[in-house]
């Protein structure tokens, strides 16, 4: 597999070469053969991606759309049942609950994470010297946050008599472990997401560096306070970056899987409070063997994400200001 891919590209290239160099043909002919050669080279270079796009994305998407209208358990052939899977979803209390907690996770977690990211980015932007160390330290959790190791650590930190429980008890808050607590396990998962604020922070910071200092100086002369400057300069100048981070974080948050799976030992508990959308999808498909139902769930997710992205792009025209020419 490894070697066929580049060889395919070379083959197309050597095919195209002699035609291009034949100088006897009239100009029109050369022009056409150059187009021909560019097409060959283009598709040659794109071959791996094309195979992946059609073979691992587009056709599987279509197939999963088909499966979503069937009852299928991988052992016997799919059986067409129309919209039953979709209809069942809304009557399935476990599904409704997983939608609810995923929505809370996204709606609460993403704004807090982005606020933390922007706040720390502004703090780091205050001064260049020494900021590099902090920037790297804050970024580290983003890199490892999705790993099983961190999920295990998180569970240990928030378990009964764990470090968090100990610290809170010291301040007189005897609330016990968060992991088994129906009310606290979702906030704990949100904290794990917020802990990974470093990636959007780095993007915010890069955006802040591009805001012209003169704007702030001019505002200073007009006697604008820090809040006014934030609202009238920082936010509008940063709106494109806010938009980008918002889109990325929302889509990412919808897909939270491994940490919830590990922390709940694959159960989605306690009381379904970590049974996020993709956790439930996975369990339906691979534990219960209900692949048709899971495929329908996946398509609902795609549609919801598509609608959200569409709405974000549409409304962005009202609040995102692109600088005419940033460079």
């Amino acid at each position, binding site marked *: 597999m490894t070697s066929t891919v580049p060889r395919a*590209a070379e083959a197309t290239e050597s095919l195209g070469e002699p035609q291009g160099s034949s100088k006897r043909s009239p100009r029109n002919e050369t022009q056409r053969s150059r187009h021909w050669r560019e097409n060959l080279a283009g598709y040659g*270079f794109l071959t791996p991606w094309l195979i992946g796009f059609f073979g691992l994305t587009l056709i599987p998407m279509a197939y999963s759309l088909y499966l979503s209208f069937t009852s299928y358990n991988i052992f016997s052939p799919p059986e067409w049942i129309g919209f039953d899977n979709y209809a069942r979803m809304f009557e399935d209390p476990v599904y409704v609950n997983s939608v609810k907690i995923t929505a809370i996770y996204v709606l609460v977690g993403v704004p807090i994470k982005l606020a933390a990211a922007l706040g720390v980015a502004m703090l780091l932007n205050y001064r260049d010297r020494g900021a590099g160390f902090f920037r790297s330290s804050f970024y580290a959790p983003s890199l*490892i946050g999705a790993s*099983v190791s961190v999920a*295990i650590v998180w569970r240990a930190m928030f378990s009964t008599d764990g470090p968090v429980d100990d610290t809170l008890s010291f301040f007189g808050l005897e609330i016990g472990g968060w992991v088994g607590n129906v009310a606290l396990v979702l906030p704990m998962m949100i904290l794990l997401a917020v802990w990974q604020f470093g990636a959007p922070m780095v993007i915010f910071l890069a*955006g802040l560096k591009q805001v012209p200092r003169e704007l702030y100086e001019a505002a200073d002369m007009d006697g604008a306070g820090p809040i006014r400057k934030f609202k009238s300069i920082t936010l509008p100048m940063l709106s494109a970056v806010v938009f980008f981070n918002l889109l990325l974080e929302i889509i990412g948050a919808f897909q939270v899987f491994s940490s919830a799976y590990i922390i709940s030992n694959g159960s989605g508990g306690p009381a379904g409070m970590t049974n996020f959308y993709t956790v439930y999808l996975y369990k339906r498909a691979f534990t219960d063997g209900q692949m048709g139902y899971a495929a329908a769930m996946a398509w609902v997710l795609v549609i919801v994400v598509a609608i959200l992205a569409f709405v974000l792009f549409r409304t962005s025209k009202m609040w995102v200001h692109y600088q005419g020419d940033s460079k």
Partner: protein
Amino acid sequence: MSTLREIRTPADPARGEQARPPRFTRKQINTAIWFAVLMASTAIVLYPLVWLLVSTFKDNSEFGQNQGLIPNDPTFDNYAKVFEGIAGVPMWRFFANSTVIAVAATFGTLLSSSMAAYAFARIRFRGVGIFFAAMIGTLLLPFHVVIIPQYIMFNNLGMIDTYWPLILPKFLATEAFFVFLMVQFMRGIPREMDEAARVDGAGHVRTFASIMLPLIQPALVTSAIFSFIWTWNDFLAPLMYITSPDKYPLPIALRLYNDQTSTSDYGATVTASFIALIPILLFFLVFQRFLVAGVATQGLKG
């Protein structure tokens, strides 16, 4: 660090000449507060990692008793236990499995993504616009919509419990993020650089291999690091496809420890978790500038 020293040096000597010299200038006080706030935040953010490191030296009996940062009785027992392995498979084996998968996946990602990026950025062929839009679309696509059909496909191909389902997609540039990153980088390179080579008679293969690849080296390094780390951390794909313990990569092996935690061995679980993180932390320490720069450019030019 250097910031500490600066706090003590007067930033504005002219002020010292005044009748009542203030002990600190306003700027120095601000800097001190800035530094203190950030130090405190860093301590909170990095605390779980420090706690993890320290806990690997704690005796099993200390868990649930001593949650502080100093082990009562530091011991290497946990490491000894972890190296023995779990489910009859030694630890080094999980480590080796993860390494094989991550290295192969990274190589495949670099090769296929750079080729696709070159086609998108530099070759004018029919359909380039549509395919580029499709690539951007997959950037936002929740991949859960394809895992079931992919599982069925790899199952039909007899590839369950092999590394093919984990590695093959990487050779097909399925991670659009890397294609996008490299396209952005290539677009920043002056066209004259490679057009000169084309005029001299070099074909696209030559231009790509000997001009473009060396020029996009920073993007390749960033992609390599991210690809390695993401594959190393990946949990869902091996959970679906790998069934025999001797083929487990680290994240799935960790699950074995994790599932047993309820019964006893906290120390081993925590230590195995730490060992699984070591390569990533090392990568991070060595390449942090590349990583941070990679994230920043991806955000701004997008």
